[in-house]
């Protein structure tokens, strides 16, 4: 009989159990399952990975069938079924990092450690994974060492980090892109106004800068419907991607419903090229939390959740501290400031799934399930989180709300262009001299953004294409960059403003390679429930892969176009459309690039 190696029993320590019990208090008693993903994260920290035994244990804790936990674990990329290395390296290989040499970083790590992606060194010290966008695109290429971001990577920096991974956070050299960039000093700043303050969690500093005035005003002077009306009048549209009127959305809340109402803050920033919400949370958590409080009041919610992307450890910590400070100061909790209004805000962490940025995928995830978007109708404002009427707003959207309340709808509406009012955080990455995030009035021309704001292209390079609103948006030709960067203008140009992620591509890279990378991203991130998206994203990626590697024919180009067309408009959510859009745009506008690959039997561009 082989003697079994005694493995420690899978049972939470007292400290972990205490944390688990606190987690349970965040969710309604009959929706304990909502604690599943945070509990699994706790378990992964406790036990090193999520093994079968851990799944069985967590299922027992929450009264679930083990297979229900298993399928959730199998959906999210941050769960490790086997222990990773002591230092788990995650190198982003999505578009912005790719444009800035992430492949060199991956290759270098592989050479140094003698492993390939998804492998672990023999001594168990390092493991390597290539991952999707880490929302640090202005400082690409980027790698995470456990929970620590290492940005602006060079092979030298990688060497330093691998030599002393414990100090990874200090060993890369930040560049100025980490500081707020402002184009003209006279521009109005709203959401980034307080960036670079010495203590983002400090409530005293926030109030010194005028913070919480809106929250007090709302509680003292305004009825919920008046708040919604002001927001509606301001013209604020959602900054998450769809560009829908925030005030109108709030007005859809089902007031007749007997179920509790909820606000869910969408802080699951994952659209490749987007890196605004992470900074908003890290730099000024109070502003969006104040906005979230005001929204909760307007829609009659007494519980709000901030669903923060799993990778954003620092943001989770800062937002939690800010919530604690607000609760301690009586700005959250019971009978806030004597108004009789109660509100609790909880941080809820994701676990690695792009689709959880889709608002109903987010709700499913928050309820402890696979993040598969729901069929609509019913819309969340009628039946949302835990069956209650729910509003889901992006971090940046809510961060605008306090100023709108204090300075008025007309003030806000005077910024930007008609119907697309206010400022917007645009995050520019790729081949520009000064990548970074910029808060600019809506409607600034793309040309101005690239050449004036971001310092233009690198010397000697020609503009090849621009992705104006995240990986999901249709590409623009160099001849199309006079388009104003507001929602309506970009829609009219056949693309979309999306999440405000502008990726600039010069002539140094193969556009097909970039497109293939995007389609591989959608293949990886499709939740898999709808047939056209599940099968179409994979098929598209495989056809493009063939063309890129010289095995494609002209018929394959038409096939790819046809696949994309067939994927659009027939699925539960728009991920399928998002995968189709860049493909359709590239074939319409950049077909010669694909044809050249067919004619050259491979990529004609070496770099």
């Amino acid at each position: 009989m082989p003697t079994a190696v005694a493995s420690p029993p899978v049972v939470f320590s007292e400290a972990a159990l205490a944390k688990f019990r606190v987690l349970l208090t965040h969710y309604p008693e009959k929706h304990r399952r909502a604690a599943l993903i945070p509990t699994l994260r706790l378990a992964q920290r406790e036990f090193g990975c999520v093994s079968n035994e851990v799944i069985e244990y967590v299922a027992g804790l929450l009264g679930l069938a083990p297979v229900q936990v298993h399928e959730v674990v199998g959906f999210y990329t941050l769960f490790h079924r086997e222990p990773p290395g002591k230092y788990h390296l995650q190198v982003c290989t999505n578009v912005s990092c790719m444009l800035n040499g992430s492949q060199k970083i991956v290759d270098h790590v592989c050479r140094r450690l003698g492993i390939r992606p998804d492998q672990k060194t023999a001594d168990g010290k390092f493991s390597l994974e290539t991952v999707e966008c880490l929302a640090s695109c202005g400082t690409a290429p980027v790698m995470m060492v456990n929970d620590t971001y290492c940005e602006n990577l060079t092979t030298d920096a990688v060497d330093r980090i691998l030599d002393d991974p414990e100090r990874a956070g200090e060993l890369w050299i930040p560049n100025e892109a980490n500081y707020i960039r402002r184009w003209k000093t006279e521009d109005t700043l709203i959401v980034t106004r307080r960036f670079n303050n010495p203590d983002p969690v400090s409530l005293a500093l926030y109030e010194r800068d005028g913070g919480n005035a809106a929250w007090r005003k709302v509680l003292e002077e305004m009825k919920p419907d008046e708040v919604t009306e002001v927001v509606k009048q301001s013209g604020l549209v959602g900054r998450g991607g769809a560009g829908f009127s925030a005030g109108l959305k709030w007005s859809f809340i089902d007031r007749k419903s007997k179920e509790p109402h909820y606000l869910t803050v969408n802080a699951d920033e994952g659209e490749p090229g987007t890196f605004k919400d992470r900074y908003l949370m890290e730099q000024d958590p109070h502003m969006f939390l104040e906005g979230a409080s005001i929204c909760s009041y307007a829609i009659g919610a007494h519980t709000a959740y901030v669903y923060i992307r799993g990778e954003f450890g620092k943001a989770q910590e800062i937002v939690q501290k800010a919530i604690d400070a607000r609760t301690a100061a009586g700005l959250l909790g019971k009978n806030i400031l004597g108004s009789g209004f109660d509100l609790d805000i909880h941080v809820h962490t994701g676990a690695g799934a792009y689709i959880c940025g889709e608002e109903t995928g987010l709700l499913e995830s928050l309820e402890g399930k696979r993040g598969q978007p729901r069929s609509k109708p019913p819309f969340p404002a009628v039946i949302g989180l835990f069956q209650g009427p729910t509003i889901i707003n992006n971090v940046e959207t809510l961060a605008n709300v306090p100023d709108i309340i204090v300075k008025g709808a007309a003030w806000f509406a005077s910024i930007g262009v008609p119907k697309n009012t206010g400022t917007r955080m645009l995050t520019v990455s790729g081949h520009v001299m000064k990548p970074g995030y910029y808060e600019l009035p809506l409607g600034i021309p793309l040309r101005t953004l690239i050449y004036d704001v971001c310092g233009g292209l690198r010397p000697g390079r020609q503009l090849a294409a621009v992705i104006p609103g995240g990986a999901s948006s249709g590409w623009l030709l160099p001849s199309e960059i006079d388009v104003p960067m507001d929602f309506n203008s970009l829609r009219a140009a056949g693309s979309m403003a999306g999440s405000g992620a502008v990726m600039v591509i010069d002539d140094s890279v193969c556009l097909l390679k970039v497109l293939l990378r995007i389609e591989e991203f959608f293949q990886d991130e499709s939740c898999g429930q709808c047939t056209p998206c599940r099968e179409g994203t994979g098929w598209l990626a495989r056809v493009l892969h063939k063309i890129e590697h010289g095995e494609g024919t002209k018929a394959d180009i038409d096939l790819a176009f046809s696949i994309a067309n067939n994927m659009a408009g027939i699925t539960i959510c728009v991920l399928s459309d998002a995968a189709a859009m860049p493909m359709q745009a590239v074939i319409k506008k950049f077909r010669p690039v694909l044809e050249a690959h067919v004619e050259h039997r491979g990529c004609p561009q070496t770099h």
Partner: protein
Amino acid sequence: MPKFTIDGKTLEVAPGTRVLEAALKHGIHIPHFCFHPALSAPANCRMCLVDVGLPKMKPDRTPELDAAGKPVIAMLPKLQTSCSTVVSEGMVVDTQGPRVKQGQHSVLEFILINHPLDCPICDKAGECMLQDNYFGWSREDSRIEPPDKIRKHKIVDLGPKIVLDTERCILCTRCIRFYDEVTKAPSLGIVNRGTFSELQVMPGRELNGTYDYNIVDICPVGALTSRDFRFRKRVWFLKKTAAICTHCATGCNMTVEEDEGRLWRQTPRLNPAVNGFWMCDAGRSAYHHTLDARRLTQPMRRGAGGTLEPASWNEALAFAAQKLRESGAGVAGFVSNRSTNEELFAFERLFAQALRGAPVASLETEVGILPLPPADGLLIRPDHNPNSRGVREIAASAGAWTGAEDLLSACAEKRIRTLLVMDPDLVGRSPNPAAAEHALASVENLIVIASHPSAATALAHVVLPGAAAQEKDGTYTRFDGRVQRSRAAIPPPGHARTELEILLGLAKMLGADFGWTSPRAAFTSLAQASKFFAGLTYDLIGPLGAVPAAAVAEQPASLV
């Protein structure tokens, strides 16, 4: 009751009805996969896309009318899944337009690109929704090169009963929802995402429940196959007969499937009042009991040497009749709650008319003839016999029968000389098997009608080989009084005969004529003799059974 128009036809439906349900009910077939009438609709396969229009509303919430006075219809910008779209007043649905066809073609192509197309060896071939939908709504050539298909796991053991082929799986989640919503014991899930999604059980566990085979039925493709049927038979050779499961008092409606007299499969047959779409694995597998090689196929008589020897039917029946006739007051009979109503009635008539009202008894037992899981509040009942209610009602209309204990005591005390037994296992099913065995051994002439050997047949002086449930026509009375008809799918093996034929043969030899010979006529006569069955006929019973007037108040709510 909202009215809507579908392909030009105006239909009125119950509030909350979904477009697909309404269409199917009215003979408009919209292709679909993930939708199943007994399960929630996740709308994930996207096959049932239709064009939907809604009446344009004026600000006062009344419909806007055109010049002709008809409501102006605004078509929705995207195709909608008919399985998840609830009918609303004035809705217009198109299932035939070019946009719908294009959507259907696209979805079918996407479903098929990674499908292995191994129909020639797939057990589902011939009853596969993917084959049917492709034939009905696509028939287009594949645009994917075989090497570009994604390879997944071809043979995954999900447990002792079910094998999964993940390449054939279209991830419709019907099986997952079956466990989540019907058995309420979540057992399957999907892991990974997108094109790499796969159906799995929890690693280290297996499917080994009471209702697992149902997922094979509802799998729209050949992804889930039954170990009991896999690679055994092409389904198009199977002939189907509507029958009733006899292994508990629920009486699940089922289809018995045979070819050339050999049983291959039993599957549940929809009956909303009885079993819905489902049946338990034990009942479904019970046809193996009928296939048992030890079946009794030859009449036998105990010879001079004391061993059972083959006899002709004439010899066996004549001997039995002679002993019954000779024994005067020392005659008795045992029927059982496993017999049909018609058999019970024939037995009762035989004893009343030909044997001077000799005593008849029946074991009041819940023990059946096969091991079954315990009662579960779903389909399995504690009584593992199909016709305990029938015994009660027929005994009641005949005047009280004798208690089984009393009759066995009478046998043990040798007050009974000749005993006719029509119970499959009188010894094994009785509360005191040793006493029962002693009682049977004490009888001078033990005549046993049975399909399988048992302790009783071992003691018998005459064995009359009978039929298994799939081999005979007849009705059973469910626990709640519903009378259900089961039809013969195959003839009894060898020289075996149905119990009704055997009883009629005995009656003839004893000079009795009941005035009927067929099960249908037997039932008509029973309905005249018994208050409980009054008014029922085979025609009224039909494929889904009928409830006698006396039992209407007992009926449970519909399961579907």
